């Protein structure tokens, strides 16, 4: 610095030895500002927790009493079960829709496009009510040859219980959103990858499964985590079709006891617990799919990278007398 100011910077001057100090011996300045910020933040947070915990209106003893209540736990099971089943179906169906959307086939493309258009374009609540009341629209479900004879048929009410209506409604809606997420992920993979897989004689399905999807996962996982968390909360909509999910079960309790806020707190804490677990899971999955990154180099690989290049020269003539020299 001083050399620059003096305008006498000389690369070989004696000043260098004193001005250019090895950064390995550098000291860290004391982070006073950051420590103060931390202290203030912790103070505010502690104060907030104190106020909430000490506030009688929140009814913490009631929260504790009902936290593991069988009704609540049953509702929790329904919420988790619905989420897992609807999400799984949604992802599988979404993958198929995404592939159909990307295919050259006009029919598959159109059908998938219409599906996505409809199920993203209408409110989930309406879709759930529609599925629940399917029997009033179609009293009988049957498999028939179009405009032809019927093969098999069932009474709609025996097929569509509140549970199936909830699963079908949530899953089809989810599939429409997942289709777009997965399509975006598949498109983010370099075209050369599909071509290489093809050139090596892989079938389309195998190329997708082994080469394209694993790479697409990096951009698919984060929005899917969002979807999953939205789904957990979306399941609370099924209370309108008389499914006893987590929210419905706390409602059924506070309808009796009138302890609205504590019971809602029970639900809120459970929702937060689930999403926290999911966040941890998501970060593990993300780390797995970013394993090819230079950043996440395995220890052995980093060690090997520091080896002398002489040990990995190809056999045959040494690179110094290679024909390219003649061309230059």
């Amino acid at each position: 610095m001083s050399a620059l100011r003096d305008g006498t910077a000389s690369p070989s001057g004696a000043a260098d030895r004193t001005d250019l100090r090895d950064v390995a011996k550098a000291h860290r300045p004391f982070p006073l500002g950051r420590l103060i910020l931390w202290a203030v933040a912790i103070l505010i947070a502690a104060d907030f927790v104190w106020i909430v915990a000490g506030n009688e209106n929140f009814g913490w003893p009631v929260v504790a009493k009902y936290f593991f209540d069988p009704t609540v736990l049953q509702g929790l099971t329904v919420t988790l079960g619905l989420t897992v089943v609807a999400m799984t179906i949604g992802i599988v169906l979404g993958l198929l829709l995404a592939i159909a959307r990307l295919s050259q086939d006009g029919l598959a493309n159109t059908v998938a496009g219409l599906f996505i258009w409809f199920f993203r374009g209408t409110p989930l609540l309406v879709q759930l009510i529609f599925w629940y009341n399917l029997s009033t629209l179609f009293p009988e479900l049957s498999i028939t040859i179009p405009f032809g004879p019927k093969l098999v048929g069932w009474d709609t009410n025996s097929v569509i219980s509140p549970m199936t209506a909830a699963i079908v409604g949530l899953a089809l809606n989810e599939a429409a959103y997942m289709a777009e997420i997965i399509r975006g992920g598949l498109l983010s993979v370099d075209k050369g990858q599909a071509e290489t897989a093809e050139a090596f004689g892989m079938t389309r399905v195998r190329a997708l499964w082994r080469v394209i999807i694993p790479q697409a996962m990096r951009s698919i996982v984060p929005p899917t985590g969002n979807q999953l968390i939205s789904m957990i909360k979306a399941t609370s909509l099924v209370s309108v079709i008389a499914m006893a999910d987590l929210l419905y079960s706390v409602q059924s309790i506070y309808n009796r006891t009138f302890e609205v806020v504590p019971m809602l707190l029970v639900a809120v804490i459970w929702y937060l617990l689930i999403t926290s677990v999911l966040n941890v899971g998501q970060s593990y999955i993300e780390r797995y799919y970013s394993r090819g990154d230079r950043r996440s180099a395995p220890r052995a690989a980093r060690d090997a990278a520091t080896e002398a290049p002489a040990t990995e020269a190809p056999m045959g003539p040494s690179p110094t007398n290679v024909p390219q020299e003649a061309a230059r």
Partner: protein
Amino acid sequence: MTVTATVEPLVKARNVHKAFGDVEVLKGIDMDVAPGEVVVILGPSGSGKSTFLRCINHLESIDQGSIMVDGEQIGYELRKERLVKLGGYAIARQRRKIGMVFQQFNLYPHMTALQNVIEAPIGVHGESRQAATDNAMKLLDRVGLASKVHNYPRQLSGGQQQRVAIARALAIRPKLMLFDEPTSALDPELVGEVLSTMRDLADQGLTMIVVTHEIGFAREAADRVVFMDGGNIVEQGPPEQVIGNPQHARTRAFLSRFI
């Protein structure tokens, strides 16, 4: 190696035409490649070299003419004296004997070097994991990367990546290897290691079609040099003839840039 009339060519291209929209990129290419022959294709940018290479393993379909590889017409099949277009699975099967090395390496970035090499042998050729791994280790050793088998592509230099890509192509025991400018994306000091690997393959009698701008490689390793321009083969013959004493003005103009 000299081409004799008695040897059935491994690759037989006849009157190959290919257009992208209105632009005719290949205007009737005829080419025979004998087993064990090394053919280097030279030509200016846009002359259709890559396109022709991609037609050979049906990454591009052709509009007219025919391409036979190892006695099979690529992309088509004769059924009751009628030529029928093949489906995806049958085309995939035809590609199994053709290895390809790309300009941009195109390694699978989520797999280690070893996994890249064993992917097709296990998944396409049905080899056992053990056999595929043994063979892959031998091949990676042969291209000088025995110490890098567990590295991911992004942890390798360009030259190392391209050598993994060559090992990957060799792992399917191809009858024919296609190289599309394998050294063009490399820093000059890394070109040598890839070219020397390729020269070893040529010496070992692998049938190769190589698109490259490395005139030195063509001169030393090629049995035959083919000069393409504007979708046509302008001139071909042994390297000393085409490179040393070009007959055609366009060949001379092209080569003059390298001297």
